């Protein structure tokens, strides 16, 4: 029955259950079983969500660029590539936002301040804003082909932009910085369970990402189909509610 299954299939449902199981295990290992770090103390526990979320954001933006490139180079130019790129970009923005927030909370405990003008932090903030812009361009309107073409080119431009921003910010900081900010991962002595927690986090978040992309791009497919049909779903849905 199409109406009940939504964007899910039995495969995504199995993947979803696995993700929930992995995340629950991660919470148990990260917050309860794993020991505190010798240097960082309990703050290392923030890393078990911070590192996987920035990792996922990189994967997401990489996938966006990849799909955009395939869309532009492909002969048939299937809009499916564009939708995967868009879904991935949207999720990437979410994860980069999460990692900025959790990272600054970790920074407050470790450095005593929420924000430092460190090259990595600053370019991550630019990464975030660049892809917020990418999402805004996807909302510009026009036909699906226009959206796909514009946003694909923009996603490839972002790939060019981000290393430049990172490079220039690194140069900028190297001039001003007297005491280098502690490299977050440098002195962490990871024992077995901590390493396992970190690894588990990466696996769990990557699978969570895959699950989200699968659902979101199907949702986008339906959005595209409806706007092709000229049917405004929101209005119809509201009418149905009013009728019922």
């Amino acid at each position, binding site marked *: 029955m*199409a*109406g009940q*299954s*939504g*964007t*899910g*299939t039995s495969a995504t449902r199995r993947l979803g259950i696995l993700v929930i199981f992995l995340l629950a295990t991660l*919470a148990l290992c*990260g*917050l309860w079983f794993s020991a505190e770090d010798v240097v960082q*103390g*309990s*703050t290392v*526990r*923030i890393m078990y*969500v*911070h590192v996987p*979320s920035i990792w996922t954001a990189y994967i997401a933006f990489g996938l966006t660029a990849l799909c955009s490139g395939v869309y532009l180079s492909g002969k048939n130019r299937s809009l499916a590539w564009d939708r995967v790129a868009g879904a991935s970009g949207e*999720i990437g923005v*979410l*994860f980069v*936002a*999460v990692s900025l*927030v*959790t990272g600054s*909370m*970790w920074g*407050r*405990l470790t450095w005593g301040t929420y924000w430092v003008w460190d090259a990595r932090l600053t370019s991550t903030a630019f990464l975030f804003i660049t892809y917020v812009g990418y999402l805004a361009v996807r909302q510009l309107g026009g036909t699906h082909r226009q959206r796909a073409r514009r946003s694909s080119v923009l996603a490839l431009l972002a790939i060019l932009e981000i290393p430049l921003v990172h490079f220039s910010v690194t140069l900028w900081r190297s001039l001003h910085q007297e005491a280098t900010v502690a490299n977050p991962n440098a002195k962490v002595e990871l024992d077995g369970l901590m390493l396992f927690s970190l690894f588990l986090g990466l696996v769990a978040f990557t699978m*969570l990402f895959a699950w*989200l992309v699968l*659902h*979101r791009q*199907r*949702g986008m*497919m*339906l*959005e595209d*189909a*409806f706007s092709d049909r000229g*049917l405004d*779903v929101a209005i*119809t*849905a509201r009418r149905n509610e009013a009728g019922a």
Partner: protein
Amino acid sequence: MEHASFIFGSWGITAVSIGVYAIWVIRRGRELAKHATREEMPWT
């Protein structure tokens, strides 16, 4: 645990924001699927 509020806070922010997004994605998908034909949902 030392710094418990920050640690649970960061885990909480992660869980809530990703959770809210996931629920939105699923609900929006279900809402759209109600009005979709089978041809528009090739995965079914």
